């Protein structure tokens, strides 16, 4: 690759998951926010056997006064599973006590790329037959 080539993916070489600003994986989350991440880990991408947390679609989670806010991105703008994913996330998160409402904020910056997939997620995709190299 030369300097002129458009590079479709940002490079995070040499950084670990926890040093990247996004995606969020909840590694350092505690209490109810940790439980929200655990609930999100049960939500799979509709096309691949990988959780949306490992896929890197979650950019942030916060809980205030019974309201959970989940920052979510999608792998591309025309994703036909947007409503399905949002409804599934809301249903799973709202099952958690004391959360009453789950509010989803769709975010697009920075755009998702394959580099956002976790190491576990990449292994799962490889075994599923999707190349992530």
């Amino acid at each position: 690759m030369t300097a002129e080539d458009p590079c479709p993916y940002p490079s995070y070489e040499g950084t670990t998951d926890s040093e990247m600003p996004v995606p969020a994986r909840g590694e350092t989350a505690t209490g109810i926010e940790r439980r929200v991440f655990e609930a999100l880990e049960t939500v799979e991408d509709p096309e691949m056997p990988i959780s949306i947390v490992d896929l890197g679609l979650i950019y942030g989670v916060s809980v205030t006064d019974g309201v959970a806010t989940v920052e979510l991105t999608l792998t591309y703008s025309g994703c036909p599973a947007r409503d399905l994913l949002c409804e599934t996330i809301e249903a799973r998160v709202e099952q958690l006590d004391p959360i009453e409402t789950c509010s989803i904020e769709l975010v697009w910056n920075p755009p998702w790329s394959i580099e956002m997939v976790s190491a576990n997620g990449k292994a799962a995709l490889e075994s599923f037959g999707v190349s992530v190299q």
Partner: protein
Amino acid sequence: MSSLSGPDVLSADERAAIEALVFPLADDEFVLAERYTEWQVRAPTLESDLALANVAQDELGHARLWYDVVADLGYDEPELLFERDPDAFYHASLCALPFETGDWADAVVRSYLYDTAEGLRLDSLAGSAYAPIANRIERITTEEEYHREHAATWIKRLCVDSEGRQTVQNAVDRLYPYALALFEPGEPTQTDVIESLGLRTESLPSLRGQWIQTTSTFFDSIDVSVPVVELPQGLPEDPGRHDPHVAAWLSLYDDFTRTYRELDRAHTPTITSEHNDG
């Protein structure tokens, strides 16, 4: 750096300027996507059928992202699309123009002209003062680049012989004046506000100049001539965004709103988000 962080901090004047900027973006993408879908199962190869279907899906995705921006200002999806008066759409006439029957050159030339304009327009919004606009640009730009590559590759492929080149030439002659209207404002009275607020960082005439240069260089390189269009004389009869092919637009509008009307729904499944949009 964005100075207008989101819909909650806007004055009435700022809202009006944002709407004037975003409605044409959304409507161009949506209406062109509706036209592209007519090529489904009719493109010349399975590969190109898939590719154009994908381009249409991308453009619908981009339309959804732009309609989300105005939805956050208080519109719902029926108001934005299915119950909006056809006269209140802002798309440039290029997007709604019917394809010449079976003319694949029309499809790929139109895509090349549109996507080149789209790339320039997105660049001029990357530094927008309104954060929800600026935040979308990289996501959309990445997807648009493939469209331009696809169209340019097909145009070159058609130009390998004189018969094919003539079909490209005919499409360029026909479409080029309409494409110029992509650089017309949706609401001319808002242009100064859009620029003084920094919602767009380059003027429409400047973008149009760059577009003419880029497209002319490309067509020159494959021996296709670009019509000399002296603004505004060479433009279609109505040089603004409003559609001179009103009957064709009304027919397209009738098509994409038919299911909504016939089901007589009080509520429709949305393509814009009910969720807060960052």
